């Protein structure tokens, strides 16, 4: 039986955190749930503990951002001997029923990393504008140039990793634009990445983090970061 850890990064998620934890717990009770509280200003940590259904809450002393936050989870997973970790965002945009799909890809050995993609199939689940689709295409082409693997959704945080990837990412987790950079970093170091289509909920309240006017600027920054990741020398040492 594989030891599985669900990493839930949370920053000011008091509204969603208990619901997210209950959903995960109801889905499968064998999974260990780890909440990483990225120095929230609200009572995210308290609420997570109060559910009584989680393995641990890690409270970071100050805000590290999503990269440093998730990396803490990888360190925990490495030190506690987990075989597989799955990142599941604390804001409730991921579907607990779809976790199995990602885990299966990793458990079967088909992939070192499985990514839940919003764009790998033509569904209407995630409304996207023409501009957005163009952006997605550009990313897909750009990362294919760098790592020769087809990835459609670089910004998805819904991912499962095997032990090899856990050990690698515990030491080398990027912090600027972690999701796309991790794809490149892993691809360059010979990890096999597979995608599977997953539905994602629209953000509840608030607006997209990337306004249309800033889209091209964002893309250039991310592509630069991806390129930088790719020119770093291969870091993985076989143990």
């Amino acid at each position, binding site marked *: 039986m594989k030891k599985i850890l669900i990493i839930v990064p949370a920053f000011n998620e008091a509204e969603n955190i208990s619901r997210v934890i209950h959903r995960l717990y109801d889905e499968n009770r064998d999974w260990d749930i780890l909440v990483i509280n990225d120095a929230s200003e609200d009572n995210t940590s308290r609420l997570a503990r109060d559910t009584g259904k989680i393995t641990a809450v*890690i*409270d970071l*002393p100050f805000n*590290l951002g999503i990269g440093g936050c998730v*990396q*803490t989870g990888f*360190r*925990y997973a490495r030190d506690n001997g987990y075989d597989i970790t799955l990142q599941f965002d604390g804001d409730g945009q991921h579907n607990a029923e779809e976790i199995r799909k990602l885990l299966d890809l990793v458990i079967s050995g088909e992939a070192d990393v499985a990514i839940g993609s919003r764009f790998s199939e033509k569904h209407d689940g995630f409304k996207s504008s023409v501009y957005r689709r163009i952006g997605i295409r550009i990313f897909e082409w750009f990362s294919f140039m760098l790592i020769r693997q087809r990835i459609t959704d670089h910004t998805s945080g819904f991912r499962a990793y095997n032990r090899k990837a856990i050990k690698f990412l515990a030491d080398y987790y990027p912090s600027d634009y972690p999701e796309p950079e991790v794809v490149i970093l892993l691809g360059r170091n010979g990890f096999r990445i597979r995608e599977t289509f997953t539905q994602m909920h629209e953000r509840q309240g608030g607006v997209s983090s990337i306004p249309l006017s800033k889209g091209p600027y964002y893309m250039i920054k991310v592509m630069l970061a991806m390129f930088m990741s790719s020119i770093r020398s291969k870091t993985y040492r076989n143990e």
Partner: protein
Amino acid sequence: MNKEVSLIAQNIQTTQYIAIAVSLGLFLYILYLVRKKKIKEEYSLLWLFSSIVFIFFSIWRDGLEYFAKLVGIAYPPAALFLILMLAIFLILIEFSIIISRHSEETKILAQEIALLKNRIEMSESGKKAQNTIRKDDLGDVEPVDEPVG
């Protein structure tokens, strides 16, 4: 005409004195800071090195003129600015390197502290669990049929 030339020459002389005084002052100030441990030795090297270069060129003006000619600068003091800017660039790049290293180290520290806090929390609650009465602790306690009091 002659008077004017000599006036300029005198001005250049004054400028040189100022340049020597300033770069010497800079050098001594850095030394002082290192001595007082306000700057660590490893971070002072680039400062000391560049202030020595400034002193060197402000004393040996022919050297500056030679250098200016070498890189094709018509006005020798402009060459001094070039050297100055290069030195500042180098120092700033070194700062960026140090800042990046520190932020990486701070991040790792924060993560390790958080993980350790969790371990302490776990072992404390584990101890509590051990402190609660276990079956074998009750070996020499007479069972009470009715609640006392």
